């Protein structure tokens, strides 16, 4: 840092000390105390635009550092829980819409491009392009939130809520995503459920899904294709909530707590970003940014890229569980 600060400090004595012979100082003498000593956007506590820009840049990087650590708490929760209960993540990922996640990933990437482009526009004083790029960034961010809204709405409708509110209206093997991937296992789970419900043949069903016990006469030994996906998703086996029939894994609701907290915190960041970009769009439209003063655009773009960065990790971790 010292290298960047020292050249900026140097002109201080020469600039601040009034010298009657210099015309420049006569101009600025009157309002030097209240800022804008050397230009409309140079705050009075900075000597040069370079110093002002560097100070802001350091500030935003320190903020991003805290943001990374802020999000890391939730990533830690995710990692620990996935390590403990991999079946819960396999179970839950059938409920998530990969297409919507992928669309949102692309939308955020495009908005990252326009944000980076906006910085270039501000640096080159291209006012119209700057406003356009900010507008596209805002539009992408809003698209992201709209997609997120429909995702959340769908989850609420299906009872996929965090904590004690978690009451899924559909069993995992009834979902299209599961049926498409493991048709045999879905059929098998369906058969066992019907048997347990309608015929009350609890003991036979329990025997069929408990691999440690011999299979009774009613069932043939299930094939691996029938059993393995169910075991991995915690529908049957040691991780299942109910040992007498196909069910869901214990603590499946914890996944949705993690899901809503991670995507929710990220969504709040996107909303904050929209607010910042709207404000900057208005300022950009007034032509306030140029080669010497584009810090706010640059800093906001950095923040926006970090939000994108978090989503780059969230997408595979939440939507692409194998």
């Amino acid at each position, binding site marked *: 840092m010292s290298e960047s600060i020292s050249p900026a400090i140097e002109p201080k004595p020469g600039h601040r000390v009034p010298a009657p012979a210099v015309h420049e100082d006569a101009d600025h003498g009157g309002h030097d105390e209240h800022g804008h000593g050397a230009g409309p956007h140079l705050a009075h506590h900075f000597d040069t635009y370079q110093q002002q820009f560097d100070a802001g840049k350091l500030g935003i990087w320190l903020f991003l550092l805290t943001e990374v650590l802020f999000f890391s708490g939730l990533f830690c929760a995710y990692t620990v829980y996935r390590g403990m209960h991999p079946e819960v993540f396999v179970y839950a990922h059938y409920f998530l819409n990969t297409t919507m996640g992928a669309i949102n990933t692309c939308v955020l990437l495009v908005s990252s491009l326009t944000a980076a482009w906006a910085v*270039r526009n501000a640096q080159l004083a291209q006012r119209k392009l700057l406003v356009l790029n900010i507008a596209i960034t805002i539009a992408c961010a809003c698209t992201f939130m709209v997609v997120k809204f429909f995702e959340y709405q769908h989850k609420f409708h299906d009872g996929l809520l965090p904590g004690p509110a978690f009451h899924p209206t559909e069993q995992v093997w009834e979902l299209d995503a599961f049926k498409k991937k493991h048709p045999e296992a879905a059929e098998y789970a369906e058969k066992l459920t019907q048997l347990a419900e309608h015929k009350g043949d609890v003991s036979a069903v329990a025997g069929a899904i408990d691999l440690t016990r011999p299979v009774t006469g009613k069932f043939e030994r299930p094939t691996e294709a029938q059993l393995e996906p169910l075991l991995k998703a915690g529908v049957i086996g040691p991780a299942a909530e109910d040992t007498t029939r196909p069910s869901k894994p214990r603590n499946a609701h914890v996944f949705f707590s993690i899901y809503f907290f991670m995507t929710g915190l990220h969504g709040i960041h996107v909303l904050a970003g929209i607010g910042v970009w709207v404000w900057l769009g208005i300022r950009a439209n007034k032509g306030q940014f140029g080669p010497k003063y584009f810090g706010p655009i640059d800093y906001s773009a950095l923040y926006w890229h970090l939000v994108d960065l978090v989503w780059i990790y969230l997408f595979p971790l939440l939507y692409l569980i194998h």
Partner: protein
Amino acid sequence: MANDDTPQNAEQPKSMQGSSEETPTIAPEDDATAPNPAFEPTEQDEPEQDEQADAVSEDPQQGHEKHEDHGLAHTMPIWMMLAVLGALMALTILTVSVTSFDLGSEGNLVVAMVIATIKAGLVVTFFMHLFWDKKFHLILFLTAVLFVILFLSMSITDRGEYQHNIDLYTNATTPAVGK
């Protein structure tokens, strides 16, 4: 010299306190800048900005003022931004399509995380300008990453330590198999 210095050093603070009065050491500097009525502090930085100025001055639309062809930071060319976006999109398609292949229980997660890290690297290096930026900002960012890694690895290690107790608890509280 040693004898001369002592009284000077003792006097300096006094003259500094005496409001706007100038010390002898500053006076020559002031004289040098005084003849230039258009003096602006940013001029001081110009020699350092020469290598960065090239990127800016490519563009015909730039700067309407004399000093503005020297930017405060690197300007990224458009082709580079589009190339980075293309790479990010391609990697997104790759990471989605790779999930349909079974690479073992850990394999898919590792591949997904490697691809995500490459994408993150592209964003940080180019979109976030760290390639051209001050190395101190890179150090700041890597410090955050380092601490996240420390945080996660310690948490995972710790979890491994008490897994046995969790298993005991789970087995004790699980209802018996239907008999």
